[in-house]
């Protein structure tokens, strides 16, 4: 039963990783930009929520109403003012600039909030759980987090394949020059994609901060989890990203069950194993 508990815990944790991954995957898919600052933006969202909860006294989950649009606006401006200028045939400039942003966010947060660990207090909901059978209980909060992940993935899937802006994302990704000939302003489309990515980052950041302690330095590790989930799931597939997050979460949970020190190592090993056996990931995008 202990094992079953860990696996369920791992699956639910995987939802969070899938959310880290979805925003990364979206940006890479639309504009071939690898956002090294992705993890730090997750932490930035967590601190924004912290300020909201402490200044306005609202519940962390209610702070999403402000943090999500705020992060989306930051994403739009970041892309329009800065990152669009770095895009071109060379992948290196955006990589370097987002690396710089990563350093700036980490140090800025450290100046403002010190290096102390913080946590968002969600109250009674944090410890509430549902008993499934004798010996197996599932926390309400992890379930909310997992449901949020599924909802986010389903929403992104719907946006990409059922809406005009999703068509514009895919068309611009295929051929930005011809997309311009269709009247699509690719700079605006890229900025919308970044806004959407950071809206997902905001949800992930707040849910992360309710679940666990955070400090300004934890961003890069979240970036690694996100990358691993994207690669495991297969680039370009939203539901694959959810599967990738779950595989990573379960591997970590099983590792932790064997020995608490093995949690991260087990996740990385699962990632390497899949990279060796199926380099295209579990659910690669179907190529016609």
């Amino acid at each position, binding site marked *: 039963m202990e094992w079953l508990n860990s696996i369920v815990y791992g699956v639910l944790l995987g939802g969070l990783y899938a959310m880290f991954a979805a925003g990364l995957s979206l940006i890479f898919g639309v504009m071939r930009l690898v956002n090294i600052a992705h993890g730090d933006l997750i932490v930035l969202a967590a601190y924004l929520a912290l300020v909201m909860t402490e200044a306005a006294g609202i519940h962390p989950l209610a702070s999403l109403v402000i943090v999500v649009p705020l992060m989306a606006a930051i994403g739009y401006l970041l892309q329009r003012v800065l990152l669009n200028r770095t895009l071109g045939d060379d992948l290196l400039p955006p990589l370097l600039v987002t690396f710089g942003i990563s350093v700036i966010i980490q140090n800025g947060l450290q100046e403002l909030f010190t290096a102390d660990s913080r946590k968002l207090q969600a109250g009674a909901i944090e410890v509430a759980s549902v008993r499934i059978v004798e010996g197996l209980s599932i926390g309400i909060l992890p379930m909310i987090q997992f449901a949020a992940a599924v909802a986010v993935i389903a929403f992104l899937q719907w946006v990409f394949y059922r809406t005009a802006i999703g*068509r514009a994302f*895919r*068309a611009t990704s*295929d051929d930005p020059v011809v997309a311009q000939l*269709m009247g699509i302003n690719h700079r605006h489309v890229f900025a919308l994609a970044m806004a959407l990515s950071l809206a997902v980052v905001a949800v992930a950041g707040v849910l992360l901060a309710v679940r666990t302690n955070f400090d300004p330095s934890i961003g890069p590790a979240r970036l690694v989890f996100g990358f691993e989930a994207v690669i495991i799931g297969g680039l370009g597939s939203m539901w694959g990203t959810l599967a990738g997050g779950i595989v990573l979460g379960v591997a970590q949970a099983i590792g932790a069950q064997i020995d608490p020190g093995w949690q991260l190592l087990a996740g990385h090993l699962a990632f390497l194993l899949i990279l060796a056996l199926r380099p295209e990931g579990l659910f690669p995008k179907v190529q016609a």
Partner: protein
Amino acid sequence: MTDLPLLQIRALDAYYGDFQALFGVSLDVRAGEVLAVIGANGAGKSTLLKSIAGLMRRPRGTILFDHAPIGDLPADQVVARGIALVPEGRRLFSSLSVEENLLVGGQLGRPGPWTLAQVYELFPAIAERRHAPSTALSGGEQQMVAIGRALMSNPRLLLCDELSLGLAPIIVRGIYARLPRIVAEGTALVIVEQDLVQAMNSAQRVVCLQEGHIALEGAAGELTRERIMAAYLGA
């Protein structure tokens, strides 16, 4: 006002870096006419279309469309004014279905005669494949989608770059046979074409480019084969 040309180009120069591809090109396109631009490889035909469509960076000279200067506008704003380009090699969006390609073409919502239904009526072959991935189509069907996609923006001027590229002659004839329908809806055409016979048969006027200069210009019926060959080869 109505007899003023729809498109007026004056002293147009275009560059790729330090390389000059067009030298002082001037030409007019009148509403509802078909102009063929011919010339050897590298004569500047595609560059001319790209300059009109807003894909060249800062061409020098004047491009007036409907009396308004458009030379400095980026491509996405040029198409909003009513100029669409069917790019060389078709360049469909590979991850989109046939219908999605057409819908992207129509995403500006410019009013006019062309709708999904009208495009499917013009090219019944692609109506049957509307939900197929665009990559699953034959070259001829892809060309029809590329033309349809451009028409979906309801252009007043349609620029066609090498419609015959890589297609069997019978397919090319089939596609060219549909062009009068497009003109009948009030759209002027500029066709860049390697296939001389096809170009001469489809157009009222012909412009021959040679190394970035206009070497010859005239009504399609009045130009002799000898004069065209001379302009082609620079003899």
